[in-house]
Each structure stands twice: as structure tokens, then as C-alpha cells.
């Protein structure tokens, strides 16, 4: 048997937001070609699902890696409060220049959540629709892969 037993806690949240995929480094025609409908000038929206996983020791007194109330309020203040019912391009400073693709959304959310003080952030997964999902595990110093 390899390795100690690890436990992670997974939690899913929802937010609705609009975005427009448009890169200032591409011409109008290139933007149109690369992003298609997602480049339409006034943007469009999605119901996003955010799934996060955190790890840590399970406290024998509570049976918990982290208290859900603490996790929920942290995610609310760091991500949901800033993204829900917002325009990602206009309302989130990180996306003034960076294109708010769901790939970049994963990276931004990971940055915002990695300082959660009660447990270690392992993964951020964002479903843009039921058919498209993106997952980021942070930068591993060993470069290990599954």
C-alpha cells in the first residue's frame, strides 16, 4: 500500500455572470474567427458551477477538514460576491485585460481561494455549461501529474 490516507472535502457553488471573449491583441476579424459567437459585442451569460476541493487533517473533535460555514463564507466573500450577477469583463479587475475564458476563470478563482486559512486548496473546477468544464490544480513544484 502506497502513501498515507488522504481526505478531501468537495463543495459546489453556483453563480451567474456575463462575459465577452475578445482579445485586444487580435484584430476584429481574428477575434471573430477565434471566438465566434462568444465575441458578440454586448456579451452573453452563463450559469456557472464552481466545484472546489480542499484537503487537510480531519479534526477528531468535529469530524471535519474545515467547517462548511467557514468555507462557504470565504468563497462567498472572495468569489461569489464578486462574480455573481456581474459582467466578468467589466466588474472583475483581473479581466479588464485578460480574456475571461473559463480557463482563466479557473486560474483567477484559484488565486482568490488559495489563501483559505483552514485547509489547503487542491482543485478548482468550473463548469461553464453542463457540457464544458475546466479544472486547475495549481502549480505543483514537482510537476507531478495524475
Amino acid at each position, binding site marked *: *500500500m*502506497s*502513501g*498515507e*490516507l*488522504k*481526505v*478531501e*472535502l*468537495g*463543495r*459546489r*457553488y453556483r453563480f451567474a455572470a456575463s462575459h465577452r471573449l475578445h482579445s485586444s491583441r487580435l484584430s476584429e476579424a481574428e477575434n471573430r474567427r477565434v471566438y465566434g459567437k462568444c465575441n458578440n459585442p454586448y456579451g452573453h451569460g452563463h450559469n456557472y458551477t464552481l466545484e472546489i*476541493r480542499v*484537503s487537510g487533517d*480531519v479534526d*477528531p*473533535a*468535529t*469530524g*471535519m*477538514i474545515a*467547517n*462548511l*460555514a467557514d468555507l462557504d463564507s470565504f468563497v462567498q466573500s472572495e468569489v461569489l460576491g464578486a462574480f455573481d450577477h456581474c459582467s466578468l469583463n467589466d466588474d472583475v479587475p483581473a479581466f479588464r485585460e485578460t480574456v475571461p475564458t473559463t480557463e482563466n476563470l479557473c486560474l483567477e478563482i484559484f488565486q482568490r481561494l488559495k489563501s483559505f486559512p483552514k485547509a489547503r486548496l*487542491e*482543485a478548482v473546477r468550473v463548469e461553464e455549461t453542463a457540457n464544458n468544464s475546466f479544472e486547475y*490544480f495549481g502549480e505543483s513544484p514537482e510537476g507531478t*501529474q*495524475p
Partner: protein
Amino acid sequence: MVYLTRKIEFSASHLYHNPAFSPEENRRIFGKCNNPHGHGHNYTLEVTVAGEPDPVTGMVLDLKWLKEILEREVMQRMDHRHLNYEVPELQGQIPTCENIARVIWNLLEPKITQGKLHRVRLYESADLFADCYRNGTGGAK
């Protein structure tokens, strides 16, 4: 390596209460989960086994065999049970998703002799789950 996942569902009741805490602390830490008469969930369990497909059968394991293990080890123990009172393996532990997943891992790991138990994921609801795996096996991915 191929990863095979089998899903089962069971329903059970539980409550969170630590006798070492005062009633106020129990209420503050566990919230509604501390309600004295308990409450229930429909749990979904995903069990992932890693292995190489047998060259003759093309299978990592016999699914019927896995199904029987899950029936015996998990369903008969936990389905339609009160996790605090009726599951000896959870005695003395708060029956959180984390602890139940770990108990299930410990029940299944020695029994999975075809392939190797890779990950146990237990959903308490669609929005809350716990994963259990051995470090270094990529179970987190």
C-alpha cells in the same frame, strides 16, 4: 492503467454532536446538523478501482463481484440506518462526509483484491462530497 467507477446510493440518518462540547458549542459548530433527533440524506458513493484489463476478458474486474462487495460492506451496513447508532465503525466519530468516506475506504480496501482501490467519493448531497485516496496515487485528480 484503467480506472473503473461503480456508483451506489444509500439513505441514512445522522446528527453531529460531540459530548466533549457544551450544548452551545455543539450548536455553534454544527448548526442545524446538531438537531437532537437527527436528519437524513441520500448518499451517493462512487468507488473507483484502478487496474489493467485482463487480456482474456478485457475487464479490470468482475463488476458483479464489486457490486456484491459494495452490497455487503456498505449497503447492508449503512442503508436505511442511523449512522450514529447503528454503524459500529463510526462509533466515537462524528459521521461527517469525511469520516464516512474514510470508514468506507477502510472497509473496502482489503476486500478489493482485483485491481486496486483508487478513490472513494461520497456525496452527502449534490453540492457536498468527500474524497478518500492514498497519497501519491493521483487519487485527487
